[in-house]
């Protein structure tokens, strides 16, 4: 089978799998976050004790944290819970890295250096999983499991919780309650992420991903040399790495490492894992607001943008210029040559469109146009379909902006799902749109204007600029993938990218939760023939256009000097 045919088959399989799974998964998540049902008297439900809507293990968590799981929170309290929880997580993760040499399963690793530890703590708590370090030579098994893998679950759950809070803002009316953060985050883990990750880990182990607590073995290669083969609990972490759109690899080479990505179908399975929750959440949204078509509209925009991006990237990679590349059939440098170019393009597109950042190929080596596209994917704001939770809330905020302009054009005060978009709503949405571009562009400008920033560049000219731009785009959008070619483990980049990640994650969350609070407090305007329909193809196209226009206008100049200059050279 030719590589192209294989590529088509892979995409087809992926789409079929996503279409098949999004419905039950989306519906299940809607139930998880709306159900208040308790087992009827005399009947026993699995996990649920008599008279409680919480699973036993969840009640243990609530008791340990000391929260009343049956009390709902107002938006400031919900937000405070998100921020406090994340702050504690950062501190804990930092501490764990700093003292790992004294703890069991340290795997002979020394304490992680402070700048790197800080950067890594932020990185994993913000669901970015930018890795300025090399996993197998820095982190012991305990940090990997109790620190990083736990944050893989928790940061994804936080994203889901915030998205659910916003959805509740649309679904509810006339209330100041958004739900309970602790319940949402716990349920996201116990009822969604853990079960899925368990199944996924088993599949990965069956597919040849390693899973042990060994500190590695020395093997003698065919040529007679000795090679050190690092082992570890890879499969368990790999599952949630993709599922939670985290992307932090166990190994430095990430999914390109044969122990992390042993075969083509496992690579494809990983792509499925990282797309499955973001593509299912719109269904949850549609369910919760009581109009499934609204969910389909959102998923339509996401899928349309993703399909366009994949097509362009595959095309750009396949038509690479140069006699040598044409002879090879496509650009091959840095590609996952074991599985062929198309799977590299698919993985690269999926990982940058979601906030995953896992890689099975090196984006730095893509053709300039391919590199431009994976960068543009992240610049979309990670909304097609975006990170777990963050993709949905990002797209909903953009929908608010689109509805505002389009709503005016039909002659009414704009309203989305019956919620009027007035001064406060637009302030929050406008600020949201502002955050990431400001972080990306300011970060990049400071980096190329200072010696400490320029010092890390391995390439000069346009390609060097692309590397810096990519790093800040990746960090601010909480993607975490790297363009490579940039020595990022320096005090400057550890700090600057750490700040980008933190602000890029939490400023939008602050705005989203506040927006959710505003929306929930509103009443609901009835839908009439004069209401802008937000479930029709016209709106889907419009929202897609708004996403592209906002991104295009913001990043065009920077892209022109980086990858575009390179591509047109």
């Amino acid at each position, binding site marked *: 089978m030719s590589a192209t045919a294989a590529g088509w088959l892979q995409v087809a399989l992926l789409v079929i799998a996503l279409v098949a799974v999004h419905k039950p998964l989306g519906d299940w998540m809607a139930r998880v976050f709306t159900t208040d049902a308790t087992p009827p008297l005399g009947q026993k439900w699995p996990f649920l004790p008599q008279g409680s809507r919480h699973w036993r293990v969840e009640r243990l968590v609530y008791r340990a944290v000391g929260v009343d799981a049956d009390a709902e929170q107002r938006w400031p309290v919900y937000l405070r819970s998100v921020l406090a929880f994340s702050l504690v997580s950062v501190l804990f993760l930092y501490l764990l890295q700093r003292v790992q040499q004294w703890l069991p399963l340290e795997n002979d690793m020394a304490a992680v250096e402070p700048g790197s530890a800080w950067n890594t703590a932020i990185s994993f708590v913000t669901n970015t999983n930018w890795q300025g370090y090399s996993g197998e030579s820095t982190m012991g098994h305990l940090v990997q499991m109790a620190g990083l893998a736990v944050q893989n679950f928790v940061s994804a759950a936080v994203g889901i919780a915030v998205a659910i809070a916003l959805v509740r803002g649309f679904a509810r009316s006339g209330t100041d309650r958004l739900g309970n953060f602790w319940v949402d985050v716990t349920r996201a883990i116990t009822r969604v992420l853990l079960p899925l990750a368990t199944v996924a880990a088993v599949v990965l182990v069956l597919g040849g991903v390693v899973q042990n607590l060994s500190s590695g073995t020395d093997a003698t290669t065919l040529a007679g040399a000795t090679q050190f083969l690092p082992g570890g609990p890879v499969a368990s972490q790999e599952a949630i790495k993709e599922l939670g759109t985290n992307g932090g690899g166990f190994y430095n080479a990430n999914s390109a490492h044969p122990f992390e990505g042993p075969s083509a179908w496992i690579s494809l399975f990983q792509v499925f894992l990282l797309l499955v929750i973001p593509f299912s959440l719109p269904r949850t949204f549609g369910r919760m607001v009581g109009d499934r078509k609204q969910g389909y509209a959102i998923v339509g925009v996401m899928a349309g943008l993703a399909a366009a991006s994949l097509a362009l990237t595959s095309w750009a990679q396949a038509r690479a210029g140069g006699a040598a590349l044409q002879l090879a059939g496509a650009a091959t440098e840095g590609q996952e040559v074991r599985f062929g170019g198309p799977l590299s393009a698919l993985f690269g597109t999926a990982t940058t469109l979601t906030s995953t950042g896992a890689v099975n190929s090196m984006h730095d080596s893509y053709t300039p146009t391919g590199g431009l596209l994976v960068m543009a994917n992240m610049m979309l704001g990670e909304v097609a379909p975006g990170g777990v939770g963050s993709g949905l809330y990002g797209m909903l905020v953009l929908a608010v902006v689109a509805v505002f302009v389009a709503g*005016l054009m039909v002659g009414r005060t704009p309203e989305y799902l019956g919620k009027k978009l007035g001064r406060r709503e637009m302030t929050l949405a406008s600020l949201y749109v502002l955050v990431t571009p400001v972080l990306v562009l300011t970060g990049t400008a400071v980096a190329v204007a200072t010696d400490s920033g320029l010092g890390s560049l391995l390439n000069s000219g346009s390609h060097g600029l692309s590397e810096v731009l990519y790093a800040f785009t990746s960090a601010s959008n909480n993607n975490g993938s790297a363009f490579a070619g940039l020595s990022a483990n320096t005090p400057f980049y550890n700090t600057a990218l750490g700040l980008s990640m933190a602000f890029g994650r939490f400023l939008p969350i602050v705005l989203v939760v506040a927006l959710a609070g505003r929306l929930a407090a509103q009443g609901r305007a009835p839908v009439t023939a004069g*209401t802008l329909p937000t479930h029709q193809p016209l709106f889907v196209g419009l929202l897609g256009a708004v996403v592209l226009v906002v991104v295009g206008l913001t990043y065009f*100049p920077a892209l022109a000097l980086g990858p575009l200059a390179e591509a047109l050279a």
Partner: protein
Amino acid sequence: MTTALDRRPVSTAPTDPRPRAAIEWGPALAGAVRKLDPRGLVRQPVVFVVWVGSVFSTVLALTDPSVFGWLIAGWLWLTVLFANAAEAVAEGRGKAQADTLRKARQTTVAYLLDGTEVPAADLRPGMRVVVVAGQVIPGDGDVVEGIASVDESAITGESAPVIRESGGDRSAVTGGTTVLSDRIVVEITSKPGETFVDRMIALVEGASRQRTPNEIALNILLSSLTIVFLVVVITLQPLAIYSGAEQSLTTLIALVVCLIPTTIGALLSAIGIAGMDRLVQRNVLAMSGRAVEAAGDVNTLLLDKTGTITLGNRQASEFVAVGGCSDDEVADAAQLASLADETPEGRSIVVLAKERYGLRGRDDLPGAEFVPFTAQTRMSGVDLPDGRQLRKGAAGAVLAWVRAQDGPVPPEVGDVVDGISAAGGTPLLLASTTADGARVLGVIHLKDVVKAGMAERFAELRRMGIRTVMITGDNERTARAIAAEAGIDDVLAEATPEDKLALIQREQAGGRLVAMTGDGTNDAPALAQADVGVAMNTGTTAAKEAGNMVDLDSDPTKLIEIVEIGKQLLITRGSLTTFSIANDLAKYFAILPAMFASAFPGLDALNVMRLSSPESAILSAVVFNALIIVALVPLALRGVKYRPASASAMLRRNLLLYGVGGVVLPFVGIKLIDLLVSLIPGIA
């Protein structure tokens, strides 16, 4: 009398009833220069940024003179001026109206009941003044004694005098209007400086103009876009320096100005002022811009039946022959019986006989004796010289009259009468007595006639998603029949003021916005509760105070136009915002290659317009950006074309026109300007 003339179709779109005034650019430019004061400009963040850019580029042009530098600086100032002029033009239109009104305020003296003369400025609420024919009413108030005809043309522009009398719903008088006949005693209701005319002047001049919620929300979005583009350009310089393509400050300023949404930013306040002005031109005064916006959002319209949906009076719609009479016989009898009947109903019978049966009017019937309607007989008719007596009237009365003469009553009469009643009409029985005895000839069907064009209008409203509710004192059955004919969605029959209020509250509880008209004091609570309450100028002071709009023409149908103007205002804002943002694409394609093609020759591929030189490209974009403001001023003042349609249809149309058009137009415009600009020495 109501005739076919009254049934002319109602216009379906808010057409400007007055000839469109030419835009007076002269005074507007003078106003624009006055508005260059940055303290005032801070209210418009987008224009303010351009102002700052103009100052900077001027300083740069002074320190480092070049043709390019001076031209950019000049055009940036022009951009600010054009933005200011747009606002000044909109305000100027109101000023003319205000000047007319000021003349109405010239009254200086008032006469108290005891004849003492006091300055009008000293009048306080509760004081009573006497106004006689020829005098100007010194202040707003209610007539508490007497009746007079009043010339209100100073305010309404309508020259026909109106009657104002004490008690009832026609007691309110407005300061500045002139009493033409008789003598009235007026109790003053407003403080000096806060009269209706004072408020009108403030409103049309835009002095009391406050930005409306939607305008504020849009301004926030525009400000945020402005910040994004400022950041984009500020951070571009380090990237450019790194790339070895450092840019001059003038170029960067030009880029900022081209990217920020100057078009909509410049026209935003003009659009708001013009929206109010369009209402004023239709003789509607909105007490706040908020009310105009709310009008666009209205979900439910409460319409009074009489005068809005139907003509004021019932009209004959058909003759039904009974007992073997021919139709012509009935028509002939009906006409004869109504010749002397001057009531609108009687007139309509004659009209119907003429229009439907071709019976010419007979002016005088020699020897005929007309029998007028009395409350006792409840019949009217005519006694002809040949001995024939014709009577028409209420079914009971006519039947009694026939039976008294032992005349037969055809069995179908009961069915016909009931049928007409059931359809919401009023049956009039027609009978005659001849030598052969009395007999029932037929039944005249009188019914409320729905104004022509209203059914289409309501269908339009339904397509726009607006529900119509007819308010009437009629019983449910009659009301439903008329509603069905007019295409009204719902009725509130046998309505009391309390019912109206309750209906509004019920609608609002469901999240709907309600608009209504009213004139009576008992309408006041409902007018106050409604989101858009339009008080008739003929109405009471209480009603005018309670509503948030006053219709000087007192035409309840205008509610529909008000809704359309509200929508038009919002559509204009949305469309120009879309247009403004869509323009940026072409500007990037003009400016970016101009900035960077020297460092990266490959980027010249982006120069799709093949502009002649970098300077020419940048200057052309700036010039286009300034000229498009001027070009769009008429559109901003007039409002974009509005045709009632469903939301999707409207969105599709406006997206195509202003979105796609906004992408394409600047490519053409900038190219054309470049052809001219490249002729300037020092630029090419």
